[in-house]
């Protein structure tokens, strides 16, 4: 091929690429939501004199242009491919993969955040929980098992728990770190697998001086693609969600205080929604109540929790007639008294280490 032909090809092809892409950008209908990133995508900004000349029309247009680019998901996968396989980088947008397990880097340790978490717990104890047996536990995130062993930056968990325990008074701490390993977590998600935490549940039960020894039937929903599947943009293997049922869970009723709806413990309709993990107790909600008519006792339990608590709580339907789950990421602590009667119930604070390291999310 001579140079003239080369020049003509370059000009022709790039004209086609840029003008063709422009046309595709214009005619492509806007997408509202990104399944992989689990967020709403930016839409075309409002065109008005105010917006254009005084507002942020152009910066919003830039966000729109990126979010609505044609074949966005495919390009994200290409970027992940280049990051891992061409430039041999160890993470893509802080997500890394060891074998089948994906995780998001969490570091450095924010000691002040851990201390603030203990202060928030103590505040709740002082305000609402006089007369209650109060227990506390911390769930290690996946980085506890993956980071240090594989040379990834991570939090000093020993230091975190030392700070946590040294600053928390008046509660009984139940250590569950040694009841878990990486296989107890979903490979493509941040959460633990409900079917694999029986040892953890037993440790909690022993610490809380209760008996939990029911049998469960395993029910499988697949394929499950967790939050890291989309964020990593890598072709990870599909996962499955196993949820456990027995007479206690099947007879229990869940009340979602935000929607006012009465639901089963496992809302399997949510498996095909934005976050399949929401099958557990209808997902992340500020106040959830589980009424368990067949429970062995008429005692009540309050769980201050994050999303890990959603798959843990069904285990307690065997023992507690009423379980109230409170997520102070979504409701101010001072408002809880307007919705919940605190009257000497057993109380369990259970958060994962990422929440402790970012406790500003607790209100």
């Amino acid at each position, binding site marked *: *091929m*001579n*140079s*003239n*032909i*080369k*020049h*003509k*090809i*370059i*000009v022709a*092809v*790039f*004209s086609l*690429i*840029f*003008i063709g*892409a*422009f046309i595709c*950008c214009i005619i492509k209908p806007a997408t509202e939501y990104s399944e992989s990133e689990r967020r709403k995508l930016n839409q075309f900004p409002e065109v008005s004199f105010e917006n254009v*000349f*005084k507002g942020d029309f*152009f910066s919003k*247009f*830039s966000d729109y*242009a*990126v979010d609505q*680019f044609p074949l*966005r998901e495919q*390009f*994200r996968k*290409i*970027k*992940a491919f*280049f990051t891992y396989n*061409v*430039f*041999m*980088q*160890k*993470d893509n*947008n802080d997500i890394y993969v060891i074998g089948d397990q994906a995780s998001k880097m969490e*570091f*450095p340790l924010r000691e002040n955040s851990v201390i603030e978490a203990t202060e928030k717990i103590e505040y709740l104890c002082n305000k609402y929980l006089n007369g209650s047996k109060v227990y506390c536990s911390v769930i290690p995130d996946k980085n506890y098992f993956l980071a*240090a062993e594989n*040379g*990834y*930056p991570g939090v000093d968990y020993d230091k975190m728990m030392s700070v946590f325990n040294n600053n928390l008074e008046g509660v009984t701490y139940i250590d569950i770190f040694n009841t878990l390993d990486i296989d107890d977590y979903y490979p493509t998600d941040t959460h633990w697998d409900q079917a694999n935490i029986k040892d953890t549940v037993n440790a909690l039960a022993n610490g809380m001086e209760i008996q939990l020894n029911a049998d469960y039937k395993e029910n499988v929903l697949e394929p499950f693609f967790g939050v890291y599947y989309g964020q990593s*943009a890598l072709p990870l293997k599909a996962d499955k969600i196993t949820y456990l049922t027995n007479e206690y869970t099947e007879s229990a009723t869940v009340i979602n205080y935000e929607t006012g709806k009465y639901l089963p413990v496992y809302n399997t309709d949510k498996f095909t929604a934005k976050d399949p993990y929401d099958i557990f107790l209808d997902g992340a909600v500020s106040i959830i109540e589980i009424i368990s008519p067949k429970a062995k006792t008429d005692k009540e339990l309050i769980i201050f929790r994050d999303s890990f608590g959603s798959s843990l709580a069904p285990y307690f339907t065997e023992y507690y007639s009423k379980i109230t789950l409170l997520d102070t990421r979504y409701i101010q602590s001072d408002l809880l008294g307007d919705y919940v009667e605190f009257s000497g119930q057993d109380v369990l604070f259970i958060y994962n280490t990422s929440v402790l390291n970012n406790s500003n999310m607790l209100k």
Partner: protein
Amino acid sequence: MVFSSIEFLFYFLPIVIILYFAVPMKLKNFILLITSLFFYFYGEKVYIILMLAAIVSAYVNGLLIEKFRGTKLSKLFLILSIAINAGMLVFFKYANFTVDNLNSLLGVNITLANIALPIGISFYTFQTLSYTVDVYRGDVKAQRNIIDLAAYVALFPQLIAGPIVRYSDIDNQLQHRTITVKKVSDGIRRFIIGLSKKVLIANALGQLCDIFRNTPEKSVLFFWIYAISFSLHIYFDFSGYSDMAIGLGRIFGFEFMENFNYPYISKSVTEFWRRWHISLGTWFRDYIYIPLGGSRTTKIKWLRNILIVWLFTGLWHGAGWNFIIWGLYFGALLLLEKLFMKNIPDIISHIYVLFAVIISFVIFNAPDMKTVLSDIGGLFGAGNIPISNTVTLYYLRSYALVIIAAIIGATPLVKNLANKIPEKVSNILEPIVLIGLIVPITAYLVDGSFNPFLYFRF
């Protein structure tokens, strides 16, 4: 709007290309002007007025300088033009810095609202300044067509990040440029190469520098990784942008001067500054250094001239003591080289230059003087930091290939290897490589949120 963005590549540029090539030659400058003004307005709604004022000032003063040539009025209009341009630059760039330092030095409490720095002001004021000076010197005729002059000043390929284009370099091209398929193709090639340097290398290294800043667990090794990475990052960022500017200029029929020439192969700081940001260095040489007398004067004045130029060079880069120190640091090194450093073996001089430049960029990138000292100290183990740690080794492993690619890319090796490929083969490979590069570039832009341009602060 930055060149390395979805909105520029796939919205703005296609529209400009379609309009530009659809209109006859006599309207092309008008199209460039309108689209350039929109380009500027996109990122700078309020201060577009300043750029328009600079254009009008240059136009009017240029005509008046020429009309009254040979009289004192001609000089007066030159001084007026300099005062307007320099005044704008000094006020918007240095007023807050000046007030803060006066308050510290004199213990007073002068208050001044935080003045935002208009994008590209350091570039377009230097262009309009050079225009009126060149008219005064008789090097160029005053431009009678305000559209053409405005198109020159506002030309979006070089408006916000250079190269600093002298009017004398493109005076003829404004009216008489030719646009050929070869030129457009060469422009596309240059643009894509620049885009690759920016998106695939510079952005990754910039992320590493950001990670370094935000990590409390530092080590001596991490300081050195940061220093080397930033030196490479700023080179690929700025030279990548210059490549894009030159490439775009060529697509529209303009030939801009080269702005970088593999500065990291230099064997002296003197040579480094002949290869780094060439358009700025030559501007200061022609408009400050030589008019002051250059080296053709007494030794004391020559020393003065060098220090003035390097003080201004530092200040041009930013209103901060670290920039002043950075500029004077190079001034001092240049003086040392001219006075004392002769007949040094190449390898030693090369290592000295790399060391000196890396240290200089550590100073350059520090947000304040305290960080300058802690960063320099960190390079040599101050503060009882470990030699290395887990975080450092992780990021070294993670970015090793990017850093190696950047080091190789900062030398002429790739270009020399490419030149050795037989023409028939390269004629086939080149389009494939260029088209291939567009895919990862687009992928990184779609997925990335980290895409700043360093020289935006200018």
